[in-house]
């Protein structure tokens, strides 16, 4: 199943289930959560100390015009002790929640890395790559932000409201009901405004993205714009986008400004009502002056977190959505499943064979599954060098991927050294078979680092030996720092041809029995071309080699040429045979010759 389908399915999972599943994937999140909450409750006690102290002072400290100083001082001492103790409880609760969150999210991240590296290539293609990076960074970050703020607020605010509510009820349940009654309309108003605010912020984000991309595009296109004297209209275009963004932000700011003091406005009305009803009920109801004053303070405390709470709810929704996406990745089955009872590849040269192999990518977005390969049978004896040719979409790259077990065929089987690749342990396979991709990927480090990617334990001498074996000494010597030359981001400090040479060296360090070469299409200068051709010849010597040939000169050099069309073998034989046969291959070859001739 593909990431998209899984995400669809997971989207139906409720918030509570999602959180439960999240805790299952990151057990550190849930560990000791109960005790943390108990500590938070004790911590909240510190915040009701002052209202209670005032009540006590007024009722028992200032009796009939007399001030009982000794009582008040004792009261103050006790209050100070409670405040400090509560502060310690709160500190511990915050610390426990925070560290548990970091521990849990770290575990979740590492699980994600591991899982993503093992996803099949269909779930790993370029369009999805950005999304995968977003899962391990921004989605996990929404969870981090949640624990740093929203999660904390849930814990502290809920504890505070609970404790305050208890004290209120203890003072006078009628007044408590009055205070509680305000919460419902307040929340309704807040939710309404909040919803508009969320929409307004969506527009801000959109405007922001548009503006930033308009700016960077205009700067990137400066030469084109200047060449056509079109800077002015381009600037006007950007100014329209900065204006749109400013408007959206100002609007969102206004809605936010309205929302901000709403809790306080409600508090004022509630306090006035509470005092009015309290005064009206008076002594008869067992109320005292102190408890009414204390109640007034408690009312402010009680309503204080509510405005914040509506934001917290939104943040919680965002976090749950992030968690859902993360779980969606973890629920996606990993690529070709590892062999259960691995069979060791036989020693010596290995042949490769495809038996009735059919391959189709899973259907996606209304597009039905179409076969990329259809019942393809192909036997490559040990040591043979074959070239796969054909138009793009003919299935050449798919054959290479299936042989390298980067994907499994839908039907049929593939054997290497007469062993089904599905039964070969990954480590075993990677030691005996290597792929040189069309666009070789290099890591932003030295050439040596990139070579050791294939052979982590290789010594400097071994790297030098590999360079000599492929006759690339003169090239390495021409580089400023030799093997220690930095290749830049994705190898950008090297020319395309140089990246290919690194890839060939890297492949040679594995010393594979089967070599799969996806030929590059980019043109390189003549000297590099010669070096690459020489290195390729050296590298493929004595190895079973499958070349995906874009230049038909490569095909002409191979032992055997296989022309693929629509996932089937159309022609198969040596270059000379096929040219003599006068079929599609000859036509392709002739057309190619004409194109490159003056």
């Amino acid at each position: 199943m593909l990431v998209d389908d899984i995400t669809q399915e997971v989207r139906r999972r409720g918030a509570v289930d999602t959180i439960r599943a999240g805790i299952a994937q990151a057990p550190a999140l849930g560990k000791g959560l109960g005790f943390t909450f108990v500590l938070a409750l004790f911590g909240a006690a510190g915040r009701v100390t002052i209202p209670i102290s005032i009540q006590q002072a007024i009722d028992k400290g200032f009796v009939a015009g007399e001030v009982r100083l000794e009582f008040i001082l004792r009261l103050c001492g006790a209050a100070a002790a409670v405040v400090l103790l509560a502060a310690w409880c709160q500190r511990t609760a915050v610390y426990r929640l925070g560290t548990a969150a970091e521990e849990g999210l770290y575990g979740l991240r590492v699980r994600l890395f591991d899982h993503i590296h093992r996803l099949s290539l269909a779930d790993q293609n370029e369009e999805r790559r950005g999304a995968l990076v977003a899962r391990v960074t921004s989605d996990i970050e929404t969870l981090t932000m949640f624990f740093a703020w929203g999660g904390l607020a849930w814990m502290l605010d809920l504890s505070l409201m609970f404790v305050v509510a208890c004290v209120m009820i203890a003072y006078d349940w009628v007044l408590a009901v009055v205070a509680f009654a305000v919460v419902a309309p307040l929340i309704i108003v807040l939710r309404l405004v909040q919803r508009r605010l969320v929409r307004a912020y969506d527009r801000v984000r959109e405007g922001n993205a548009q503006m930033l991309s308009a700016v960077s595009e205009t700067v990137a296109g400066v030469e084109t714009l200047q060449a056509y004297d079109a800077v002015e209209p381009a600037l006007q275009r950007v100014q329209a986008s900065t204006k749109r963004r400013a408007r959206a932000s100002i609007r969102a700011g206004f809605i936010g400004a309205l929302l901000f003091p709403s809790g306080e406005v409600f508090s004022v009305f509630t306090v006035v009502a509470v005092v009015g009803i309290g005064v009206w009920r008076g002594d008869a109801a067992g109320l005292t002056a102190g408890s009414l004053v204390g109640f007034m303070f408690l009312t402010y405390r009680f309503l204080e977190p509510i405005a914040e709470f509506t934001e917290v709810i939104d943040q919680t929704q965002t976090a749950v959505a992030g968690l859902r996406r993360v779980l969606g990745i973890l629920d996606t089955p990993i690529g070709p499943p590892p062999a259960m009872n691995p069979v060791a590849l036989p020693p010596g040269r290995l042949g490769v064979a495809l038996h009735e192999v059919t391959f189709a990518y899973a259907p996606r977005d209304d597009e039905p599954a179409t076969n990329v390969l259809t019942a393809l049978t192909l036997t490559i004896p040990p040591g043979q060098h074959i070239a796969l040719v054909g138009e793009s979409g003919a299935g050449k790259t798919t054959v290479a991927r299936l042989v390298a077990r980067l994907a499994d065929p839908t039907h049929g089987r593939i054997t290497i050294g007469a062993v089904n690749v599905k039964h070969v342990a990954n480590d075993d396979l990677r030691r005996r078979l290597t792929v040189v991709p069309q666009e070789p990927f290099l890591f932003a480090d030295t050439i040596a680092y990139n070579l050791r990617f294939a052979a982590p334990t290789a010594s400097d001498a071994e790297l030098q030996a590999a360079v000599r074996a492929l006759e690339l000494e003169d090239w390495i010597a021409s580089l400023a720092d030799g093997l220690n030359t930095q290749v830049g981001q994705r190898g950008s400090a090297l020319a395309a041809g140089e990246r290919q040479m690194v890839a060939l060296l890297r492949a040679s360090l594995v010393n594979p029995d089967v070599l799969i070469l996806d030929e590059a299409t980019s043109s390189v200068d003549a000297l590099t071309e010669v070096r690459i051709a020489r290195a390729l010849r050296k590298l493929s010597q004595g190895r079973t080699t499958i070349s995906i040939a874009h230049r038909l000169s490569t095909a002409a050099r191979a032992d055997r040429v296989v022309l693929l069309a629509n996932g089937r073998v159309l022609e198969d034989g040596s270059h000379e045979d096929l040219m003599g046969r006068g079929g599609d291959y000859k036509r392709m070859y002739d057309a190619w010759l004409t194109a490159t001739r003056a």
Partner: protein
Amino acid sequence: MWAMVSFHKGYFFIAVGGAAVFAVATVLSSYGVQLLIDDVILPTFDTGGITFDTWARVSAVVVVIGLVRAVGVVVRRTYAGVANQSTAKTVADNTLSHLMRQPAAWHRQRMTGDIAARAGVDTDAAATILGPMPFASSVVVLLIVSGVWLIVTDVWLGLFAFTVFPLMLVMNILYQRKVDYHYQVAQDELGALSEAAHESFDGVLVVKAFGAEDRETERLAVISRRLRKARTNAITLRSTFESLIDAAPSLVNVAIIGFGATRVRDGAMTVGELSAFVFLFTLVSLPLRIVSYLFSELPHSASGWARVQQVLNEPLQRAPRAAILPSDDAMVDLRNVSAAHVDGAFALRDVTLTVHRGRTVAIVGATGSGKTTLLHLIAGLVGAKSGTIRLGTTRVGLVFQEAFLFAESLRYNLTLGADVAQDAINRALEIAAADGFVRDLGVSLDTELGERGVSLSGGQRQRLALARALAMGSELLLLDDTTSALDPSTEAAVLTNLRLLGDSVTTLVVASRPSTIALADTVIFMAEGNIAAAGTHEVLLRANDAYRTLISAFEHDRHDGENSADR
């Protein structure tokens, strides 16, 4: 900071006004609490009752104060946003228009991403300071008004407040600075992690091909552990300090109750006043907390502004186009022109060249021989060090090696905002052999291209770039290896179309495909920044050894193929 305010002073001061109203109303609201206690609650329980009117009067005062305070908040926040956003817009527009007037040579010495950031995220960062500034001003007013009120009511309590307020403020700021450090470290680690994850996922094919999944996961886990460490450090600090800072106002309030009780005994203050002070302290402690965020914003904003200033203060360099003179007869007339690379090395040396109207000229040369520089000079994109450039037209269409398309409508991409008739656009698409694929893709002139729209192949992009040059009525076409991304038959069709335009278009084309070169009237062979030879392809092949060597290198692939075929 003041520089930021100066762009839209009016909005800013409305926000500050709102902030002042908020601050005064905050202090008054604790006066309201005092009235409720002294005039309503205490009389009820001490003397056995008050009139409804008394309650209504006091309640009205409390409610009005609360509403005024709310209005102050709304005005402050709204106009702080207006000032912030208007300033961000003004500065971004000014910065970008300055940047775009710098010539290509200036841009080539800098990274595109960095330049774009100056007009984008940096101006945003600079302007954000306007958001919390009015709030900070309200905190100052709040502290002064409440301090004065406290002193007037009770000198000792007032003095106490003037000691405690600043102390709490300093505590908050110190804490903020420390915790920001850890968050900054965490942010840096997150950036590193994101970059590494991107790289690792991008290279998934290599990772899988070499069975390096575990090693790569561990590499990312190491960075994640550093991130966790930074975050845990922040949490440790935060849990301790925030609990203390939360507890501080309560402790101060305990002290006020104790000390206030002696003042009440002496008859120096009422119980209502005492409670009001306790209430006031609760109200003031939150703004003290929040204002410390302002101090953590400051360096961020200041560095953003510094980066913006840096590019704004660079004087505009002269536009190279201004040095190009009109020519009466020849289309292109270069006399002893020399030009330098950004690093100062010679790109062109003493080049003299005349091209007549309607001709097609191929420019051939090895990498680094100065072909691209020659075209950019003629297009007025870069300037000459010496020599004169005369052109027979001002309508020059340079088509770059890499076509640059905007994530905008097809129409915008063809006209770059200029007013071009529909017919001219259609004709341009036809000549550039782009009409076919545009139709096949079902693209209309209003379809968006690029990231969010239709994605195009390299050859298709090149043809659109050529169509752009034609649609904009170029009389002199400069094609920098433009057609090499096309397949040979399309390339031949495009070049034939251009020749059919006759005298109305003169074409200079950098070419490496022998078939393309053969289509030109004249070939200019460049080597080491100079014109080594000129003539027809056949003549040069016969007479010039270096030219022959270069052409055979271009043909290398073909020969290679033929040789093996002969084997």
